[in-house]
């Protein structure tokens, strides 16, 4: 039977055979990891649906938005100001980077020992597996690490639509100045792309949408402090992953509905794991969809993950933008300031991150911290040593990629770590 979205995939130039294979693998993994969980909140049904339509209904929506003249902007980083994309009525999408696909293709352009996330986004594009990248009018890169920086040069040769924002290395006055000017430059880019001016109303609307999304995610994060945890780490991670590609209005509404249900669970003392189950904070590199490996191992061993101190997690929604401004310039300057509070490991020094991790372990009553680095992700691998010294709780450092070859080893480490707690 021909899939109802096949015409769009064909038009976008996807490799249909490989794409069908990818969706098959994804669906199997989802059934094994997600559907096997017990006591899931009913509100997760929406997110199950969104995953099942990740390259289907959502692609159709984005396709139709593009047809109606809205600019489609792809990104890989929480530093890309989504508010400005929405201010010109654009659509902002986090692009596919969370699976080991197209490695052979990617290795024609980048070294084998490149982090899995970079290899993933190159591979998704080169193997013709990411419909989002094909729908974008602009792909926004950023200078958060050497690997990404250089990969974007190559990605631009392939796609001809990469635009790079310069992220400073330090947060002093010069760094702030640089970043602010980069956000103003991005505003011009968005105006040129859309043929629309960024107005005070437009910016306010964009900020309101993004802030509402962040508030919903903050609410979800706060609810995970309850014991027993009302939602699994796997499910909460999924909600965070989906926040990067779903329609922001609908996403916010459904996340709030999920949180309403979780509030009821907390009131009645219901949870996904037994009260007193070991609670862990995961901290480090981002886990792009469908990277569920560590969460599956930890929760498969009987513990529960109560927070992600990561870009796909707390770093994405910890701070809100100040919606109180009279001019576009004032609004953009305030927003730029909010972005610089993000404690990415690309900055030096980055001591805020240590404070934020400790605030999270305290607020969420975490029994221990698992530091997760993607292999070859130097900034996070280096910071792990400082994090270990500062957390004052049992600490496990893990370095891995998307492959399953070290699943058994990781499981042994995680289980032994749980035995210590």
């Amino acid at each position: 039977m021909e899939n109802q979205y096949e015409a769009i995939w064909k038009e976008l130039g996807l490799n249909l055979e490989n794409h069908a294979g990818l969706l098959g693998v994804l669906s199997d993994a989802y059934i094994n990891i997600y559907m096997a969980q017990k006591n899931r909140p009913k509100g997760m049904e929406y997110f199950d649906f969104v995953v099942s339509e990740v390259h289907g209904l959502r692609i159709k929506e984005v396709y139709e938005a593009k047809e109606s003249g809205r600019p489609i902007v792809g990104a890989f980083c929480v530093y890309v100001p989504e508010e400005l994309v929405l201010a010109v009525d654009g659509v902002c999408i986090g692009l596919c980077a969370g699976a080991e696909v197209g490695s052979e293709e990617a290795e024609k352009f980048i070294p084998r020992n490149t982090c899995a996330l970079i290899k993933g986004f190159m591979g998704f594009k080169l193997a013709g597996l990411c419909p989002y990248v094909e729908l974008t009018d602009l792909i926004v890169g950023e200078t958060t690490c050497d690997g990404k920086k250089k990969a974007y040069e190559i990605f631009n040769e392939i796609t001809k639509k990469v635009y790079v924002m310069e992220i400073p290395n330090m947060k002093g006055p010069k760094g702030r100045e640089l970043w602010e000017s980069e956000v103003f430059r991005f505003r011009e880019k968005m105006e040129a792309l859309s043929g629309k001016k960024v107005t005070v109303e437009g910016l306010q609307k964009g900020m309101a949408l993004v802030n509402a999304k962040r508030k919903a995610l903050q609410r979800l994060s706060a609810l995970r402090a309850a014991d027993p945890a009302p939602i699994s780490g796997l499910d909460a991670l999924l909600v965070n992953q989906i926040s990067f590609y779903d329609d922001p209005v609908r996403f916010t509404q459904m996340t709030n509905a999920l949180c309403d249900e979780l509030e009821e669970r907390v009131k009645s003392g219901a949870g996904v794991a037994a009260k007193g189950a070991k609670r862990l904070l995961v901290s480090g590199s981002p886990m792009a969809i469908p990277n569920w490996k560590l969460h599956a191992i930890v929760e498969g061993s009987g513990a529960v993950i109560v927070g992600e101190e990561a870009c796909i997690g707390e770093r994405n929604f910890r701070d809100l933008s100040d919606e109180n401004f009279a001019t576009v310039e004032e609004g953009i300057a305030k927003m730029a300031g909010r972005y610089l509070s993000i404690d990415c490991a690309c900055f030096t020094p980055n001591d805020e991150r240590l404070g934020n991790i400790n605030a999270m372990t305290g607020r969420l009553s975490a029994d221990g911290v698992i530091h997760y680095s993607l292999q070859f992700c130097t900034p996070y691998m280096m910071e792990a040593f400082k994090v270990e010294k500062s957390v004052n709780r049992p600490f496990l450092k893990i370095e891995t990629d998307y492959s399953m070859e070290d699943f058994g080893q990781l499981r042994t480490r995680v289980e032994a770590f749980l035995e210590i707690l």
Partner: protein
Amino acid sequence: MRTLGIDIGSRYIKAALVADGKLISFDRRETSCEPLESCRSILGDMGADRVMATGYGRHLLEVHGDIPTVTEIKAFARGAREFFPACRTVIDIGGQDTKVISLDVEGRVRKFEMNDRCAAGTGKFLEVMARTLGYDLAEFGALPADEEEEVRISSMCTVFAESEVVSLIARGVSRSRIAKSINQAVAARVAGMVKRFPVEEEIVFAGGCAHSPLLRGMLEKSLGKKLFVPSVPEITGALGAALCAVQESA
């Protein structure tokens, strides 16, 4: 009560039977490609009231036999304490994992380190190298640690180190010299893992590789400390699992 600990490693399955808190018998078989069959035959032969599985294949028994499991980290810690009650650090060079475990005064696991992914510096590495040089494992470990000048083995990858060894042989370097260099390379790597913690004594060297006096001597030299080796070092994990089973039933 008789409890059985069964340690399903990547190369061997080890079993230890404990009655009234004392080791009464043990067994060791190759893991082969039918580990479940080997486990079942051990279970049948050794008859116990309770069983506890550990090692890389522990979940095999959990799934197929509803047998509780404990990680090899905890099992080795427990087993090493049984052999040497003052043990604070355990080194285990297993078939595919090298582990260093740091214990508190009470014998609880405080921290542990494991090698990453590949077989670099593990028992499997030594086994492949011994075979390449035409030694059996006992001979390989019994070579004298004399002052012969060392040749440097730079790769710890089993595959690349093997080709390095082949080219050393082709250059006419004596095989005993190469063999000692390989052991030295492993000792240096493991000593590096041990030194990531503050090293507390007594240090117990467990696992099958502890049968090698050469490796033990080199490790002692690298660490500048004495190592204690259990009488049957390869059953340390199985014994620990059996003792954990006693604890759990109490």
